[in-house]
């Protein structure tokens, strides 16, 4: 109950509404509700970024152990013997597996014993980072001992950027997925950009306002809202089963993503073309140019920054898309970077999806780190788009 004070002044005021105080209170409550929903979104974003960075940062560091490594015929034959027996379980299996390659590139190491920084097993790494680990007491004691002797070091994890996927957690990296992403998006943009811009030019500059045009327009708007997974079904049924293109390849992924990116490019290019004032076109016609010359030499150059902005935003969206690529098989285990667009490949978000499903704790860390890399690229792309828009924006 709101207590209403009635003083003489208000009684004499013919405009005095006894409910006014309650009405103002309700208005202010409403404002607070809208503000709190906005704060909720911002708070979520802050919490989300904090959480991902907190989980992902440790993955940029990885543990090395200084050990005596013996290089000779026997250890090259079976590289497990290169380190003392008690250290075998705390040293990375993948590092040992690559030992013969190391000796091949550095023949002077042969028949020597060197004190070398050796990549540690993922469990050792997780133990030292204070995460969940799975080690025997003996191993923990050994690691603690080495740690107090200063024989354990945490270094920048360059493996994460130079290696492809691996079943051994400490050896898994984002490299092959990055190259797969680049190849896939290259195909996407090569297909979507020309077709999208040409469609926009047709609809804005050439098409008459007839049924066919309106049908295309409605169709493009619909296409923009069709669930992405259905594009995957299209890719599977048409590009793979009908055209016989290789499964899991960047060419199929790129074509599928191109069809998804088309509506974004068309809509933004149309807006950019529409923003070019008619006086430009009329001046061109007045000088005796035909429609194609006016469009090609005058309208399109003026609209180009807008077209480019829309295309970059479309590219960023295609880069983060996963669902249709799972359907066409781009989640296969790909340890080596694809050499061409016909090879089996995976892309960054698909790689993150695979890692997120792995049981070892280190993959969680790597997924979060991969998310940081992906988000950095996406936010940079969007920032470039906004910068281009601001820089080349023309006020007519």
């Amino acid at each position: 109950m709101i207590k209403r004070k009635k003083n003489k002044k208000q009684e004499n005021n013919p405009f005095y509404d006894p409910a006014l105080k309650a009405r103002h209170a309700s208005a202010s409550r409403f404002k607070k509700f809208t503000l709190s929903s906005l704060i909720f979104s911002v708070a979520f974003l802050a919490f989300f970024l904090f959480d991902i960075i907190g989980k992902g940062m440790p993955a940029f560091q990885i543990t090395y152990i200084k050990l005596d490594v013996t290089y000779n015929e026997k250890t090259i034959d079976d590289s497990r013997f290169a380190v003392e027996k008690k250290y075998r379980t705390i040293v990375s299996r993948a590092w040992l597996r690559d030992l013969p390659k190391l000796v091949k590139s550095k023949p002077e190491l042969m028949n020597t014993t060197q004190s070398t920084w050796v990549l540690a097993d993922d469990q050792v790494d997780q133990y030292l980072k204070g995460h969940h680990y799975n080690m025997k007491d003996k191993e923990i004691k050994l690691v603690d001992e080495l740690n107090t002797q200063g024989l354990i070091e945490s270094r920048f994890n360059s493996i994460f950027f130079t290696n492809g996927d691996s079943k051994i957690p400490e050896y898994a990296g984002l490299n092959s997925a990055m190259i797969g992403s680049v190849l896939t998006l290259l195909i996407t943009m090569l297909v979507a950009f020309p077709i999208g811009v040409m469609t926009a030019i047709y609809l804005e500059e050439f098409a008459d306002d007839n049924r066919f045009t309106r049908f295309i327009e409605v169709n493009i708007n619909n296409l923009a809202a069709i669930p992405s997974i259905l594009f995957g079904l299209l890719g599977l049924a048409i590009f793979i089963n009908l055209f016989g293109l290789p499964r899991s390849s960047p060419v199929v992924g790129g074509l599928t993503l191109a069809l998804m990116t088309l509506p974004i490019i068309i809509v933004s290019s149309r807006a950019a073309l529409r923003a070019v004032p008619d006086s430009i076109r009329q001046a061109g016609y007045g000088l005796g140019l035909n429609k194609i010359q006016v469009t090609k030499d005058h309208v399109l150059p003026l609209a180009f920054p807008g077209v480019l902005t829309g295309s970059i935003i479309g590219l960023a969206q295609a880069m983060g898309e996963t669902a249709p690529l799972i359907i066409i098989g781009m989640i296969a285990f790909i340890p080596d970077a694809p050499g061409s667009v016909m090879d089996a490949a995976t892309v960054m978000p698909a790689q993150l999806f695979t890692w997120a499903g792995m049981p070892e704790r280190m993959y969680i860390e790597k997924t979060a780190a991969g998310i940081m890399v992906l988000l950095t690229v996406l936010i940079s792309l969007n920032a470039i788009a906004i910068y281009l828009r601001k820089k080349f924006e023309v006020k007519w």
Partner: protein
Amino acid sequence: MSTFESRKKQRELNEKLIKFALIAAATISILTTLGILFSILFEAIEFFKLRSFWYFITGTEWSPGVVGSKFGAVPIFAGTFVITIIALAVAIPVGLGSAIYMSEYATPTVRDYLKPILEVLAGIPTVVYGFFAAITVAPMIVNAAESIGLEATFNSALASGIVMGIMIIPVISSLSDDVIRSVPDSQRKAAFGLGMTHGETIRNIVLPSAMPGIISASLLGLSKALGETMIVVMAAGLRPNLSWNPLEDMTTVTVTIVNSLVGDFEFSSPETLSAFALGLVLFVVTLVLNMISLSLIRKFKEKYKVNTL
């Protein structure tokens, strides 16, 4: 023939060729829609040749991969429905509230800072949301449920629903924001002139005018929630579960599509083809929702004569 005439002819031919190329590009978008429709439809028909359509729509048991496998999709539809409702229960109030604050209360400077933040939310890939739902939100829900004496699974519908709702906030807020801002200012001024408070003006005047646009935004959000894949693949369950309890695990149409296609079944087996039958349902439902949404927004545009939407 003079050179002038031959050049003119050449130019006309070029013009025709270019126009033809432009039309060809424009028809690609139609071909895409038709491609999606037919590629799904043909495989779905193959499925319905093997299994009854009626049982698919009304059956309550989904058990692929066993002898005497059954394909009754009701539990899958129900799971999709529950998760979608949770998502919309988060996204509509928060999205609409944000849109109202940004369009009615915020100063232009505040707006300039807030809008990019919501755009970042829209730019986060769904696989990232899925990871967040599975690794961070789901354990939080299990703990919270435990503290009040309830039991939740690690792939509860609630976790994926909430995160999906957050993903949809920008879809609803950006369209609603545009719609609310295009309600003519004269309406607000008239309401102020009659002595309404700002809150009353928004609730009684602005929102009813903007309602078609807001409904359109919500339908778009609904269609996005139905078709969302990665969040539910990573955070929701695999088990078809006919239940209303959001703390239990349940599966959705999109999860089932993914699982049927990445399995080891032959392409012509009903297990694989069932993905296309579910895809057909998803296609039809989202198409209808999009159509309604588009026609509502078109009516709004015509009423207030705005071209910016």
